[in-house]
């Protein structure tokens, strides 16, 4: 006899865990399926955890979640080949609990989250891949796993299977993801003694730093780099649009190697022992690339639904919020005794439209396209900015006025006056 559940959640990343936890707490009979050996084993993330989204699901998560460091300092660097100009924001306010952002190691964090899901009463089964959805006409009635006797039925299925959801594609819910809508990111973890990290970054125990990077490191492609401090390791990585990799014929690995060799970055990871290398896609198509996210008996949450704010490097929080919202929609219908029809599940999309999730995606709607078509933001400007800084700071007997004139001449020579105005306008439209 095939098993039957109230709800099946596919995937045990932040979206799936938020959904399964909420559903189980709400009293439903929930099955969660994860293809990895354990939750987190397949997950790649920088990673910064934004407290707010998790707090709304598990208020006391700080009691036992494996958190590395809370962030007290954010640096933004625009890099040229040998230099960078940057800003730093550090605040004692960030050192006041409850902390707002933490670095985490996803493998540990996801495992913890999953243990909470299990405590809440959901049945979690790993090392089991869902190969396809079971359909009755247009209605999803269950899943087919890769194991013998693998058909399992449910009233509703939440797809939280991550970027490039194969399941939704196979079922014809959305087309294949476009290479211009996904970034390919690579990252490494370098182990260093805790004291070394704390002295190198001028931080105390449990305090952390983030460095966001843009400029020449992406070699003209649309993309950014990042570096986060964990307890006893440093995560660093870089991601660029997949379509750019395709035309540039560069490999992400070569990009990361070059980034690590940058004179500003090399000393930060010096002496570290590289333990983990991982590559992963990030859905960054933005608002217009969000596929249909609900239908007859199914909902999509997290990366599978393109819910990532690429500019702010937010993903896990959108994943948790969409997972929780999907679950709440299901719970409400279950409580009212209503069927999980597309018409009833449409409430999910309405709720997201009203939340920060869709509002933020909408705000940056034009950003992907603008950055994609204007590589000068990743090449010419970093170079100009760095040269300007160099010219201004270097003391060499040239008077300041002449220096300023030279800087201006450089900018106009490279982009023309109209180009500069146009670029400013584009920048404004991207962030407007």
């Amino acid at each position: 006899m095939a098993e039957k559940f109230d709800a099946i959640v596919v995937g045990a990343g932040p979206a799936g865990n938020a959904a399964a936890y909420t559903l189980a707490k709400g009293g439903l009979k929930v099955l969660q399926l994860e293809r990895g050996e354990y939750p987190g084993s397949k997950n790649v993330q920088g990673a910064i955890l934004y407290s707010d989204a998790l707090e709304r699901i598990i208020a006391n998560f700080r009691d036992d979640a494996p958190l590395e460091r809370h962030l007290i300092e954010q640096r933004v660097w625009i890099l040229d080949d040998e230099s960078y100009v940057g800003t730093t924001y550090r605040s004692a306010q960030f050192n006041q609990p409850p902390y707002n952002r933490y670095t985490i190691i996803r493998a540990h964090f996801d495992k913890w989250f999953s243990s909470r899901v299990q405590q809440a009463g959901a049945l979690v089964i790993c090392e089991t891949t869902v190969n396809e959805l079971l359909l009755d006409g247009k209605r999803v009635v269950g899943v087919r796993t890769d194991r013998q006797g693998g058909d399992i039925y449910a009233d509703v299925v939440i797809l939280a299977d991550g970027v490039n959801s194969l399941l939704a594609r196979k079922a014809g819910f959305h087309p294949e993801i476009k290479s211009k809508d996904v970034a390919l990111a690579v990252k490494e973890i370098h182990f260093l003694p805790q004291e070394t990290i704390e002295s190198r970054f001028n931080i105390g125990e449990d305090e952390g730093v983030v460095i966001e990077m843009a400029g020449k490191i992406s070699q003209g492609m649309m993309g950014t780099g990042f570096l986060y401090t964990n307890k006893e390791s440093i995560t660093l990585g870089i991601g660029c649009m997949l379509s750019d990799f395709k035309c540039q014929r560069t490999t992400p690995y070569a990009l990361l190697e070059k980034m690590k060799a940058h004179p500003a970055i090399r000393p930060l990871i010096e002496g570290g022992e590289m333990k983990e290398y991982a590559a992963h896609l990030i859905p960054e198509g933005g608002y217009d690339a969000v596929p249909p996210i609900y239908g007859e008996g199914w909902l999509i949450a997290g990366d599978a639904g393109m819910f990532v704010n690429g500019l702010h490097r937010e993903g896990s929080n959108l994943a948790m919020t969409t997972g929780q919202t999907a679950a709440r929609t299901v719970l409400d219908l279950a409580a009212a005794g209503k069927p999980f029809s597309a018409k009833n599940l449409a409430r999910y999309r309405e709720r997201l439209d009203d939340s920060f999730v869709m509002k933020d995606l909408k705000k940056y709607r034009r950003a992907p396209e603008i950055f994609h078509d204007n590589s000068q933001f990743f090449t010419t400007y970093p170079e100009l900015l760095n040269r300007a800084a160099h010219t201004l700071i270097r003391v060499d007997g040239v008077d300041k006025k002449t220096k300023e004139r030279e800087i201006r001449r450089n900018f106009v020579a490279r982009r023309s006056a109209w180009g500069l105005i146009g670029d400013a306008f584009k920048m404004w439209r991207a962030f407007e």
Partner: protein
Amino acid sequence: MHSVVCIKQVPDSAQIRVHPVTNTIMRQGVPAIINPYDLFALEQALRLKDRFGGTVTVVTMGPPQAEVALRKALSFGADEAILVSDRAFAGADTLATSCALASTIRQIRKNMPVDIVFTGKQTIDGDTAQVGPGIARRLDLQLLTYVSRILEVDHGARQIRVERRAEGGVQVLRTALPCLITMLEGTNEMRFGTMADMFRAARAELKVWDRLAAGIEDPSLVGLKGSPTVVGKVFAPKPRALRAEMIETATQEPKDLAVTLLAKLFTQHPRIERELARRAV
């Protein structure tokens, strides 16, 4: 047919680091896995069950977290799982471990006679290969170590015939049941459990036996007290500087390169040359 398989949860040694200053093993954050060698033992037991029917019981002595290992064993198709766990077992060496496991198996066979006890060849953390023989001795079981294949089980005659890897060759041995087999690696491949087994494993209530349930009256026989082994010192060996040898050749012709390399190989390993020559005839 009732098999008992002893499995040990070990830190994944591929991911272990030694602390550069204190030289202690850093277990934190290192995933725990079933000792890989024990999976060959478990799969062998499951194959016997496929063929002859019966029951496979898995046993582990370890902390409460070892439950994960047992659940995994159930998901592969084992029928019963027993976690032998008690503070009194902490700090056990091979002697104390063998003692506790032997006593546990004695308790198990009170309910259901045991035909074969399986263990892995050795663990990847302790690496001693002593626990299997230690159990066999205490339970007075015939001992078959480094078994690569079970050729025949004759229930009527209560006999078993196996292949065993020995130095320089393979031995075929016959002995009486019940016996203890330590299984060699690479002899089979763990199956992919069914969906029904996954559900059963996820829902199973595991049996947890403390010292008394495991039938051990005298606490001084187990744990640190029952362990005469003293670890004098732990240190990380210096990595050997393996240096590649550069061999100069006169030409860049692939054939010449191959001949040069083979000549080098043959001078160091004359057996290979003899063997190749023999096969060429």
